[in-house]
């Protein structure tokens, strides 16, 4: 697509690693490995997340087979952790399991909102950076906390648009713009995306990438929605770079005012 070419010289880099897509996929919520396989293919993603859980003897096949076959980099998360201690241990386990020191850091305050606990999150981020991890924290949309996480040495900040799995989109675009305006590194919109226009908006606000799972894996047609998200991220990025027209409260003609014939 035209867009593809136009972004050729617009690399997406996290912690010195370049990725061929600005769409990061979560792999949770899909009904089967075949569905996630098709979705990953359609999404064109180059990075996707996994969770760490006790071995379940009853399961057959592994998400890693799909990820490895697709040549996608794996990003373990600390989903389900409620304290810094749990999250740090989970990151350490993931490092041994997946031979990566990258981690999507999640420390949530409660099951109902799944919103980050700012205190435990910052504590965990500081500890993991000290242990040599490349930390990508899932955070709320508070510019103050985002600044603290960057000061702590996080490789990126990943503010939410709205709570995980709600599909409510970007509740507070002004906060995302503030975070972007003072960011030292990549800003990745994480959580809340419901449909393609939400992903496009995230990029238009200046985010460097989008991370989503449910919007694709729980859609009626996950592969098609994955293709939609890929196009939306491209669209939003191009629009950001192209420089949109200002909003005007009054109309402006797009056809000439002069030269009307007398009919």
């Amino acid at each position: 697509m035209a867009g593809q070419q136009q972004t050729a010289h617009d690399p997406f880099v996290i912690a010195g690693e370049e990725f061929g897509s600005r769409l990061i996929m979560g792999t949770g919520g899909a009904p089967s490995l075949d569905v996630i396989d098709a979705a990953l293919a359609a999404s064109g993603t180059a990075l996707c997340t996994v969770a760490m859980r006790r071995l379940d003897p009853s399961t057959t096949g592994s998400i890693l087979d799909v990820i490895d076959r697709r040549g996608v980099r794996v990003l373990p998360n600390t989903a389900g952790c409620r304290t810094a201690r749990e999250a740090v241990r989970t990151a350490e386990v993931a490092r041994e399991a997946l031979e990566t020191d990258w981690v999507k850091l999640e420390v949530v305050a409660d099951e109902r909102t799944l919103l980050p606990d700012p205190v435990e999150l910052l504590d965990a981020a500081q500890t993991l950076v000290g242990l040599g991890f490349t930390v990508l924290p899932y955070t709320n949309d508070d510019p103050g906390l985002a600044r603290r996480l960057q000061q702590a040495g996080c490789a990126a900040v990943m503010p939410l648009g709205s709570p995980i799995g709600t599909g409510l989109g970007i509740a507070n675009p002004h906060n995302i713009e503030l975070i972007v305006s003072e960011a030292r590194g990549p800003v990745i919109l994480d959580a809340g995306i419901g449909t393609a226009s939400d992903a496009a908006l995230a990029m238009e606000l200046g985010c460097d990438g989008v991370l989503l799972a449910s919007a694709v894996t729980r859609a009626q047609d996950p592969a098609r929605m994955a293709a939609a998200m890929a196009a939306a991220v491209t669209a939003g990025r191009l629009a950001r770079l192209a420089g949109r027209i200002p909003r005007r409260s009054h109309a402006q003609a797009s056809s000439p005012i002069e030269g009307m014939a007398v009919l």
Partner: protein
Amino acid sequence: MTITLNGESCELDDDITLVAFIESRTGTTRGSAVVVDDEVVPRGSWPDYRLRDGQRVELITAVQGG
């Protein structure tokens, strides 16, 4: 010998290494790791590390997730 695996009692051959144990459970060491008696065991020491009777083992693996 008997260990506690992911919270449940489990019979194992004596002297089994972590590598052998993990492969026997998952078919591969890719994507899995273990915590033995609250210590994360580094991947590098799995070949020589031998489980002992009574240890508490968490066998953890990557799954689909957010």
